[in-house]
């Protein structure tokens, strides 16, 4: 039971894509995804695919890592193509076996949707591949400020995101320690049927929760003694938008909107 550290999908690098401010990447990707769903022509998809390939090339992220995100959705694409292509007793089918037929128009529509999913997955995975979880969390925290106007505790939520992300490896190590300790006391996690195996985890879950919530006590006292109030928090490293970030943001959003409207 071990968690790889660093976890997540981030591929460290020094490319121009890595160097872009995380908020710019999130913003451009958000507009890009909406534009992709507005596109109705193969020309539009071709333009989006070229844009994604160009960004992958500039980012120096190995293409196999980008394509790795597509593997889990392979069945989804097969379903999409089949759901559109297959007809039952319909007219205008190109090929048929009994009442089951394949519509050429449906097939093309299914392939169009499947290609759109591939571009979408590749495009959105670029954000997590080129931005560290810490930078992404920081960016999301800063993008949450409009919610505080509505009374949402945005500062607290940002702090929760930061602590949660920071403590995932620590919690995984804690879990591993408890598993080893219980194994040393004779616990077996690989014997019997599903119910017996599930019951074997109870002596792990209870101490895990108890230790974690005790740690919460210690951490809260540490934060309190360092004068954390949740309001007006400052950062050691403050990331700001440079001229190149603004240029990429404006160009990316303009291209995506143009593509979504006219292609």
């Amino acid at each position: 039971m071990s968690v790889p550290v660093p976890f997540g999908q981030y591929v460290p690098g020094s490319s121009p894509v890595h160097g872009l401010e995380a908020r710019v990447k999130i913003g451009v990707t958000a507009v890009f995804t909406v534009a992709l769903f507005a596109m109705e022509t193969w020309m539009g998809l071709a333009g989006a695919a070229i844009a994604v390939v160009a960004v992958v090339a500039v980012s120096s992220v190995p293409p196999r890592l980008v394509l790795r995100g597509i593997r889990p959705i392979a069945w989804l694409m097969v379903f999409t193509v089949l759901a559109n292509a297959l007809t039952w007793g319909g007219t205008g089918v190109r090929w048929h076996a009994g009442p089951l037929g394949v519509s050429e128009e449906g097939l093309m529509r299914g392939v169009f949707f499947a290609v759109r999913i591939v571009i979408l997955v590749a495009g959105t995975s670029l954000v997590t591949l080129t931005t560290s979880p810490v930078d992404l969390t920081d960016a999301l925290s800063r993008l949450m400020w409009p919610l505080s106007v509505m009374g949402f505790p945005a500062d607290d939520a940002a702090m929760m995101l930061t602590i949660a992300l920071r403590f995932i490896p620590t919690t995984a190590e804690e879990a591993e320690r408890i598993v080893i300790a219980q194994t040393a006391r004779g616990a077996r996690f690989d014997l019997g049927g599903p119910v017996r195996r599930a019951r074997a985890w109870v002596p792990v879950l209870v101490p895990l929760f108890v230790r974690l919530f005790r740690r919460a006590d210690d951490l809260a006292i540490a934060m309190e003694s360092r004068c954390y109030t949740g309001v007006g928090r400052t950062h050691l490293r403050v990331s700001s938008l440079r001229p190149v970030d603004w240029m990429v943001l404006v160009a990316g959003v303009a291209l995506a909107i143009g593509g979504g409207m006219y292609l």
Partner: protein
Amino acid sequence: MREERIRLIVEVALSVALAAVLGMFKLTLPWNFAGGSVSLSMLPLIVISLRRGLAPGIVAGLTFGVIDYLLEPYFVHPVQVVLDYPVAFAACGLAALARPRRSGVLAITEIGSSALGGAILAGAGRLAASFVSGVVFFSANAPEGQPVWLYSLLYNASYLAPSVIACGVAAAVVVPALDRAVPISRVSLP
């Protein structure tokens, strides 16, 4: 009082971290080709909801939804992302509605029914969000006239039902042990 509020924030955050760790140990069923798996990732969200109430439970779910997306993004439609991650896990906060009405020493049946009820409410909330997400996705990618609601309901229930049972049983064991070992003074998020 301020220390209690900070403690609440930290408890929620560490619950999210634990949910992320438990979510890494998952069983993906052969037919769950479009995401979704059986895991205990909902357990810490149910526990924090039963322990601290509705608002902390919802905030924990929202936070976990964001973290889960950052760690393992599955993006096939913009609406699907919002519904499958922050909204679906925020709905796990509904477990708080099953909190026991009275405090003090509770009978084992009260603890069990509260934990199981919480898990069922959390599962139902998450199912509702994932169901709508599935309808949106299948509607966008399947021809008109197909029973997309049925696809979505069966698909999402197939992995959520075992997760709910596992989380309910585990919560019935964890919640009373946690309340005994680390008691709380009841506070709420502002």
